[in-house]
């Protein structure tokens, strides 16, 4: 399922660069759901990712694939932490597929990297 979200921003502070439309790629692989946002995950688009995860429904493994993410801000981090809390409360596995250097740097700065499970390829998450 591909959900197209206009890159426009309800708060009027749309990014300066002419971004491609924001998409969230959601796929089911057996017992896992792989959610792959494409573009900037920020205040303007984080709700779309949140909805995509919620719509995907419960699964023993939820994979958040950050490879298509160009940029992540604190709202994106907040989303990841929310999912981590949910995973602990509901007993599913949350696995993140590493994004590019800038995205990973943000996790480092936020001091979250040690507390999250990162893999390089979704297959790693699905195989286990």
């Amino acid at each position, binding site marked *: 399922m591909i959900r197209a979200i206009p890159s426009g921003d309800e*708060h*009027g*502070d*749309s*990014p*300066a*660069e002419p971004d491609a439309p924001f998409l969230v790629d959601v796929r089911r692989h057996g017992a896992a759901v792989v959610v792959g946002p494409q573009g900037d995950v*920020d*205040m303007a688009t984080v709700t779309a990712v949140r909805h995509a995860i919620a719509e995907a429904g419960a699964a023993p493994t939820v994979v958040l694939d950050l490879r298509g993410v160009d*940029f992540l*801000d*604190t*709202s994106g*981090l*907040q989303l990841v*932490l*929310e999912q981590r*809390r949910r995973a602990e409360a509901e007993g599913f596995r949350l696995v993140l597929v590493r994004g590019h250097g*800038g995205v990973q*740097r943000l996790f*480092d*700065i*936020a*001091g*979250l990297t040690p*507390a999250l499970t990162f893999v390089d390829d979704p297959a790693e998450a699905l195989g286990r």
Partner: protein
Amino acid sequence: MTRLAPADPRWLGLAAGLAIVATLAAADALLDAPGQIVIASVVVAPFVAALVAPPRETLLVGAAAFATAVASAAWNGNAGETDYWVRLGIIAAGTALAVRSARVREVSTELRSVEAQMTAAVGNLAEAVTVQDADGTLVYANEAAARAFGFRSSHELLATPPAQIVDRFESFTDDGAPLAVERLPGRRVLSGERDPEPLTVRAIDRVTGEERWRQIKASSVLDPSGRVQLAVNIVEDITEVKRAELTQRLLAQAGEVLASSLDYERTLQQVAELAVPELADWCGVSMPEANGLIRQVAVAHVDPAKVEFARSFSARYPVRSSDPTGAPAVIREGRSEMIAEIPDELLEQAGLDPEQLELIRSLGMRSVIIAPMVAGGRTIGAISFVTSDSARIFTNADLELAEELGRRAGTAVENSRLYTERSHIARTLQASLLPDELPEIPGFSLATLYRPAGEENWVGGDFYDTFEVPAGWLVVVGDVAGRGADAAALTALARFTLRTGATLLDTPLAALAHLNAELLARSGMALVSVACALVTERDGEASVTVMCAGHPPPILVHDGVAEPIGRLGPLLGAFEDAHWDPVSVTLTGGEVLTLFTDGVLDTHGADERFGEERLRATLAAAGGSPREAVDAIEAALSGFEVGEQADDTAVVALMRSHVAASAGRSGQGHAELSDHGG
């Protein structure tokens, strides 16, 4: 020939002719004096025809028959014996003439009946129809035309000189320009144009003040040589259509204008300008002020000189909220007022000074509507419409439109006020989230930069603070996820929790842990990132200790080399078992430490974000003072940024300004920092 109807007059002519022929034949057979009878019959025949044919044709028939009879008699005389059949032929010719005469009468009756029907039909048309002859004189007008031009009957209209008819109306074309008579389609037809465009005219009756919209079409009647003989004008009254169109357009445009900006004085002026000249000659908006006066916030007239006049007039003669009539009364009572025709006595009774009265009279006001501007059940002003030059008199339809405009303008003004108020609250709140002015840290100099993102109504989530703690001075730069009221509340919580925590709990690390626990105790997710620098000075040796909680590490510049200081620790509000490792650096003099929020790094450029490397390069190249460091960042961001600023930005730079001075600040230093660091 067509079949004859039983009542057709031609039967009579034919019957008469046949009767004569029969009489003649009988007389010829019975009598021995045929010539006389023939002559008599020929003379009688036309008179029989005269019974059924109109006089003029009968006379012609008579003359022809008489001539025939004379010829017949002459022939008779010469020939002696007359041939029966030849005489019968002559009689038949006379009969035919009689029948012919009857036929002429019949056609003429038919024509007249058509003319009567046509006249009756045109006379009853709802459209006004007039006919002008070649020199433009009105030769025909139906009753609708008479009514349309304000006359009791078409006779009265036809008897009135054309100039007088024209002068009775103030006429404009569709574009608002005064009507030039040569543009009238009738005139154009008479000047030889074949198919002139219909013309839409707005005419205001100078006598009754009534406004009518007309669409005028004209066509020509040519004579056999092809010259224009007549111009037939059809004047359709399209007032209802035009009024409905005007109302809709005005409301739609006003809606657009009112929604276009939050500067309500400007939008009200635009709305007033929309209303002239089609709805009114003047339009003005007044609103009560706190000082008890009513201010004219907008005024419009097609003539700028008159707008100027109105402005200076209202400056010279201020209106008080307590004034008994006019806009103050409408604002007080919330009810609109319409005076269809302003009598002069009304002006005289208004208690104006003579000069003021004269000025008002000079405007020639004719009709006025003052409608309340209503918002949330409250009247916040009045919108006035006045006619003067156009001599138009307002109707109930105008009143309804004026009231609707008043309601829409009221709502727009209220929205804009609420917005202004909200941004004021936001600005006030935002200002409260930052220290009024950073206190001076003895022996150190500081510089700050704060750039809130986007519109002013968004309360930013970035903050900075500086305050004294037991170990020295703490400089804090922080960022709260999100924006708006929630972020503002969280920002306030973070800033003051850190402040009290660091003051009371002895160590900054304890303060961080305290804030972390506070944030985790909140129902929703509340994340705060913070970079702290504890500045201490003991025995003339200054040092700075940096802690990063989910925050980009501050940058220390020394001798043109920029490097990040601090160990990365988790965001506040993320984990219960979080801890942070402080990093201390001795300041030997000349180092500038810059703390900043991620708004700096995330600033959008044409292709990428500003990022840590650019920031380090910027700081490395900056001059050696905190002010220069901050200014360099601001300049670099301004030069780099493309589009609107997306995130708040806060920067604090500090430097040891001199080595000596207040060396006496508590002797504890950073030994304590490890207490909680675990």
